[in-house]
């Protein structure tokens, strides 16, 4: 075999039922890039339609791509692929975690780990380079994730990187996570590990990722990347005016500035000027604690953490001594929804208020309580849906109706209504340990709607934010570039988790510059509307949607972080704020030695998008994607009202969509992918053209190709 660069060339397969392990060849999956692409191909080939996610026949793939471990900036992510328990038809889906797991997996010599079957008793998997052992996990079953990681590391060595489930996953909660590191969670697949009796996968690697190009080439690319990278979500303007900056935006995650500190560092560290040309301050520019938790979090900030090989540190790491009063460790870390998920549950009662003598710091303490609970128990929030659901079920009397009276009375609603976050301790204990009836809230919206008899009012209520009857919520949908975000959200079986478009508009650059750049990428500035000032669907927006979907799959396959990539924009005036959208292809070519242009690499990712679509068609058993899968909930295209009068769509100040326009948009996106414009299903010709003839053949044999 000729030398392989980028990829390790090997996939580890663990048959839990027999305890046997085997080695598979990565390169037979090279048309699907890596990570997510490999995962979908394995699902297509090996997991039959109709398989229950918790059935031993389901498989779970922990995947990394060729750029993971190579040192390319923002390449530390792990993509997990399996069937989704929250999906009403158990469709395919991916969950993602940052941290250091996949890099260690690559250094141990594996591009992916495929878990198959079901272990007869609880186990954890020990991987030390090419030595793989299935270990007894009965002694750690039932433990929280933090202690589990410590127990494993005490056996394997402190270098081990661990991906584990908590009680939520063990109990096969649909909304459970697989977690790694101190605060990196992949939501939605924890229950599958539980069903397979796998408490954890732990890995230690002494190897490397080989790089094809001369070192000077990758060093040069790294240097360039470091010059055009922004803050978290590729925001390229600072939150406060700075001498070096032409622009600013109070909403920017580029919060670093003189006078703002990691206040609990010893001594405190000033984030400082963060001039984009100063490579040694890139890690200071995102002070995420004050962004996520407010100015009061500054004094609690020890540092910013994040993932392997990423200079942008988006995880706040705090020391909150007050947590010890609640039996919790004072050190707590998370980012974004890791904080706002549990906090959202408190929003159901009006939000966290002053409690237990914590005064003005109550919010930080409350956030710490919430995130400690979910990270140790391993509960997923379904991108904040759990909080919105608690609010709806509480306010609409659903809880009162469906919970047994005794159970209802035992729940400390008074804490919720008082804004006392100790409610979360009780709440998550019930949910993770499947106590009573309440825990079914973690079945996911689609299942809970059936079980608790929720009607159209649940699905169509705007503040519930549910995108389709698939039971997943918005995640940068119509509020992000109108139809672009809206349509992106239709091509998924869970929250879209697509930041390609969000990183673009989130750059916070003036709209004229954003539109110019959009024009260069998509053919017309009309691809992008100003915020909250939308125009009707057009061809260029459809191209934007396709690009976002393709790059999302590309990043999750390479594996790069889609919360930073692509580099469409930059903080550099001398580049007219342009980034470089070919940088993924340049890094791919340099690292793997397989030279691909931007268009060629996008084509590979388009194959992954199409395969995912085919998997969804197969899982649903229908070609009617437009009617059965992509159909959006009514609130999305219902005009808002002000003073009793409807605010017409496509007027300034409303983001409400219009049904005909969205339907037209779906067709235009289908066309972009070469799918059937009527049904939205991939066609025989389209599948064959993108190298998926076997997929076309199987769909054909099942009558699942559009006429």
């Amino acid at each position: 075999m000729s030398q392989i660069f980028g990829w390790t060339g090997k996939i580890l397969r663990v048959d839990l039922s027999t305890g046997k392990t085997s080695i598979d060849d990565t390169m037979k999956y090279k048309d699907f890039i890596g990570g997510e692409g490999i995962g979908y191909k394995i699902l297509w080939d090996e997991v039959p339609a109709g398989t229950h996610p918790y059935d031993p026949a389901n498989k779970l793939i922990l995947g990394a791509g060729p750029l993971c471990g190579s040192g390319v900036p923002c390449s530390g992510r792990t993509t997990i692929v399996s069937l989704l328990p929250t999906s009403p038809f158990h469709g395919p889906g991916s969950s993602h975690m940052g941290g250091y797991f996949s890099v260690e997996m690559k250094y141990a010599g594996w591009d992916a780990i495929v878990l198959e079957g079901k272990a007869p008793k609880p186990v954890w998997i020990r991987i030390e380079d090419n030595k793989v052992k299935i270990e007894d996990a009965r002694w750690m079953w039932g433990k929280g994730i933090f202690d589990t990681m410590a127990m494993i590391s005490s056996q394997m060595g402190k270098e081990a990187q661990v991906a584990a489930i908590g009680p939520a996953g063990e109990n096969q909660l649909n909304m459970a996570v697989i977690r790694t590191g101190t605060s990196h969670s992949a939501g939605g697949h924890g229950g599958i590990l539980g069903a397979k009796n796998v408490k954890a996968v732990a890995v230690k690697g002494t190897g490397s990722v080989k790089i094809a190009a001369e070192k000077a080439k990758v060093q040069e690319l790294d240097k360039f990347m470091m010059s055009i990278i922004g803050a978290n979500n590729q925001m390229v303007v600072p939150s406060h005016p700075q001498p070096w900056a032409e622009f600013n935006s109070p909403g920017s995650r580029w919060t670093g500035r003189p006078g703002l500190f990691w206040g609990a560092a010893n001594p405190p560290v000033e984030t400082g000027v963060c001039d984009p040309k100063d490579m040694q301050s890139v890690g200071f520019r995102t002070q995420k604690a004050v962004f996520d938790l407010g100015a009061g979090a500054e004094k609690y900030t020890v540092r910013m953490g994040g993932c392997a090989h990423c200079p942008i540190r988006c995880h706040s790491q705090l020391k909150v001594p007050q947590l010890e009063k609640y039996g919790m460790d004072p050190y707590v870390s998370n980012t974004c929804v890791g904080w706002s998920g549990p906090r959202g549950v408190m929003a159901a009662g009006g939000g966290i208020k002053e409690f237990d003598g914590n005064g003005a710091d109550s919010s930080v303490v409350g956030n710490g309580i919430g995130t400690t609970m979910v990270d140790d128990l391993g509960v997923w929030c379904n991108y904040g849906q759990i909080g919105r659901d608690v609010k709806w079920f509480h306010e609409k009397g659903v809880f009162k109706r469906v919970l047994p009276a005794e159970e209802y009375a035992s729940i400390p609603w008074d804490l919720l209504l008082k804004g006392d976050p100790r409610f979360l301790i009780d709440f998550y204990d019930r949910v993770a340990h499947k106590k009573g009836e309440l825990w079914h809230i973690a079945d996911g919206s689609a299942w809970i709607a059936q079980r608790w008899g929720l009607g159209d009012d649940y699905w169509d209520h705007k503040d519930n934010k549910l995108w389709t009857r698939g039971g997943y919520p918005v995640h940068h949908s119509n509020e992000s570039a109108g139809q672009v975000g809206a349509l992106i959200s239709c091509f998924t079986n869970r929250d879209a988790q697509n930041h390609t478009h969000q990183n673009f508009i989130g750059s916070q650059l003036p709209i004229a510059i954003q539109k110019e750049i959009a024009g260069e990428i998509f053919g017309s500035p009309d691809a992008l509307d100003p915020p909250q000032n939308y125009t009707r669907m057009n061809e260029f927006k459809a191209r934007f949607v396709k690009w976002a979907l393709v790059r999302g799959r590309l990043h999750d396959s390479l594996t790069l972080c889609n919360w930073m990539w692509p580099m469409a924009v930059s903080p550099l005036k001398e580049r007219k704020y342009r980034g470089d959208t070919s940088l993924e292809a340049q890094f791919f070519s340099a690292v793997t030695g397989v030279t691909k242009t931007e268009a060629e690499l996008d084509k590979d990712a388009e194959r992954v998008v199409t395969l995912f679509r085919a998997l969804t068609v197969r899982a649903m058993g229908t070609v009617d994607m437009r009617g059965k899968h992509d159909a959006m909930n009514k609130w999305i295209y219902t005009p808002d009202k002000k003073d009793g009068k409807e605010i017409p769509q496509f007027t300034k100040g409303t983001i409400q969509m219009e049904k005909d326009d969205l339907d037209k948009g779906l067709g235009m996106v289908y066309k972009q992918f070469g799918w059937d414009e009527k049904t939205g299903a991939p066609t025989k010709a389209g599948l064959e053209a993108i190298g998926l003839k076997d997929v076309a053949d199987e769909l054909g044999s099942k009558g699942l190709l559009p006429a």
Partner: protein
Amino acid sequence: METSDVTASDAPSAVGTVRRDSAAGRLTLLSALRADAARNASLPPAAAEIGQDAPSSAVPADPLDEIGGSGAEDLKRMDGRAETYFFSDLYMTRAYASYLYRLAEKDLVGLVVETVREDSRLYPRPTPLDFFRGPPFTLAQDQLDDILTRIREREDCRDIRECRASNGARYLYSTLHLTVAHAEALTEWNEVGQAENP
């Protein structure tokens, strides 16, 4: 930024001072440059070292002449009511310099009005009142209240309007560039919606 010191120290003194000040986030005042020049001219040691008699009261070179003659295209001049300011656009953007200029000139109404108009036009977005409480402005709340009162009284500021997000946060916008509905929606999104959609 490692080149900044080299450039600055190689340059003639007034030019160097402006660049150093800009790199440190400050405007340079002409009055300060003149004071420096006067002080340098009255210092004898340099002359003494080379064995010449130092004039007891040398006429200092005018920094304006020095800057004008330096050919340093990065140096920009802003004339205020009683003071002249310089900055180097190698180290400070025009936008930032204008903020500092209005602060130095104590033109706080102009600072707020022009910033709000520019934000409404450029991004477009309404400007949170809190923006002016943070750096580099660090205005006190009573200063801001006073500015708002004066804005309301001025005929030429009729386009500046205030709106509030559902959490009570106050924003300003200009009707020259944003409609009421648009400004209100953006205010709510920027202040509340965005945080709920991380």
